[in-house]
């Protein structure tokens, strides 16, 4: 313990009380530490200032760009309006044209189809009705034709040892091979097949969906 002018106990190593007069010592460390601290502080400040300045500059540039683009938008607004109007006109016209084309378009050559069908109808099959139509609401996209449905309703009996179901299978196969349909059959379903007890026949309903290709140049 230093006896003079010290209020608190100085911890010193055993047998080594320190009798230095600190104010008289040369000021070495504080200068270096202070210099270092100042240097670090200045570098930090300059760095932050630089970052801020850079951001402000970027902001200024972007603002200018925004203003310029705004001007461009204003300049082009009337021209754009005209173009939009023209485009709408075009779309209307296109839809009308499409409808007309569609209306005129034969999804398949009907007389040829009927002739093919008659020739390939297996023995034992009697057709009661042939329905042909576009399936509405199935095509979401107006640019794509919806599938075309051919529904054959009729009856079939056993003939020469072949069961009615085998005969209908044969009909289905032949349908897919028909020249007027070839390559375009999407589905070939037997939607109904039941025995008719009154007439002792099997009623059936066959649904054929066709993929109708869009003709180019229409």
């Amino acid at each position, binding site marked *: *313990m230093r006896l*003079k002018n010290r*209020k608190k*106990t100085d911890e010193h190593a055993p047998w080594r*009380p320190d009798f230095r*007069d600190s104010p008289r010592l040369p000021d070495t460390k504080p200068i270096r530490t202070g210099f270092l601290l100042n240097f670090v502080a200045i570098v930090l400040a300059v760095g932050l200032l630089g970052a801020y300045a850079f951001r402000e500059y970027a902001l200024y540039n972007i603002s200018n760009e925004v203003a310029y683009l705004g001007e461009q938008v204003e300049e082009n607004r009337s021209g754009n309006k005209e173009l939009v109007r023209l485009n709408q006109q075009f779309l209307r016209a296109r839809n009308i044209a499409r409808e007309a084309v569609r209306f005129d378009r034969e999804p398949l050559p009907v007389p040829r189809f009927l002739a093919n069908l008659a020739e390939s109808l297996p023995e034992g099959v009697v057709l009661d009705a042939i329905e042909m139509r576009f399936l509405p609401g199935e095509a979401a996209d107006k640019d794509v034709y919806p599938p075309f449905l051919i529904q054959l309703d009729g009856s079939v009996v056993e003939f020469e040892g072949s069961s009615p179901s085998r005969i209908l299978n044969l009909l289905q196969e032949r349908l897919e091979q028909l020249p007027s349909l070839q390559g375009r059959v999407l589905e070939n379903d037997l939607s109904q097949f039941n025995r008719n007890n009154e007439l002792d026949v099997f009623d059936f309903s066959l649904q054929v969906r066709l993929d109708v290709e869009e003709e180019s140049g229409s």
Partner: protein
Amino acid sequence: MRSVQCFRMISKKCKGLFVEVNGFSYQLAAVTSLSPPLTVESITEVSRQEPEKLREMIGEVIGPAKNRFLRSHCGIVPESRFFRLHTIESLAKAKEPQYFLDLLESQYRINPKSVRASAVSASTGLGFDGTRPLATQKELMICGADIREFEAFQDNLVECGVYPASLQLSTLSSLGAMKNYLRSQESADPVLLVEMTQNSSHLFILSKDRIDLCRPVNFGFNSVLPTIQKELGLQDEESARGLFFSDTFDFRELGSKLLRRMLKELHASSGFYEVQTGQTIPHVYMTLLPRSLHWIAEVIAAEMEMNLLDINWENWLQTMGVSIGGDLSIGDFDASRFGLAGLFGSFSGKSDAVEKQKEN
């Protein structure tokens, strides 16, 4: 006083110094670290009369710039140094801020305003701390010196390029060192430690556990000069001084006459101790003696019928975590370097007395 030749310069790789400034020389130990474990690379002596040489030597290590320094732990030997043993009777009283100041003035006739002083435990060496129990700090060593001497030593060191990381009393450090040495050798024997400077001396009786006795002696090197002058029929005291410090004359025959007053004090104190404790003192050791005056220690040992303590340097330095490097060898360590070596160690703060209690 002839100038002591420097026989080793300080290596440029030196990380710091331990410096003892006594009446004759600056003793410098260049080290790899200011706390153990450390290696001593070189020991250099520069005469007190040639501080510019010290400045030059240090300049070679750190460069000539004025604001550059070599960090050092420094031990000094001011002539005005004082050491007193004091027993604390009441911890409460001792905690009072004026206690030690009054003690200095009333009991020791020392003006507290003119000195810088410290109170350390005579057993642990730790500073007196009012918050710690009385057990290890009942016996205190009050020590210090004149403020002006402390300032003069400090300024002088700074001018020479030494930045004092601490400014210690070499005597106190040597007491701690001797205690540490005795402990390291597991020696239970007390030692009579004597230090002598130009105008004053101190004697201490200590063991590995504590400092038991401490006495100032109004006797120094200058005290022998009139006797030398008279005995040898010299013209004046200056001639006597020249002869005394010259290491050309064998003063051993005159020894007991020259040292009569000192020997009287030594006999008185050691006798008192032996009667009080029933223990004889087998060893004596002298610090602060330059090699040329080693005969004084021999005379005292002979007259006191004691052995000059033979320090096992190798063993002791090892226990302190100090190794030797450069061109140094163990033979470079002797009594004249004890004070310097005593600065190296960081001695355990554990009270030996407390540890003894634990053992029992």
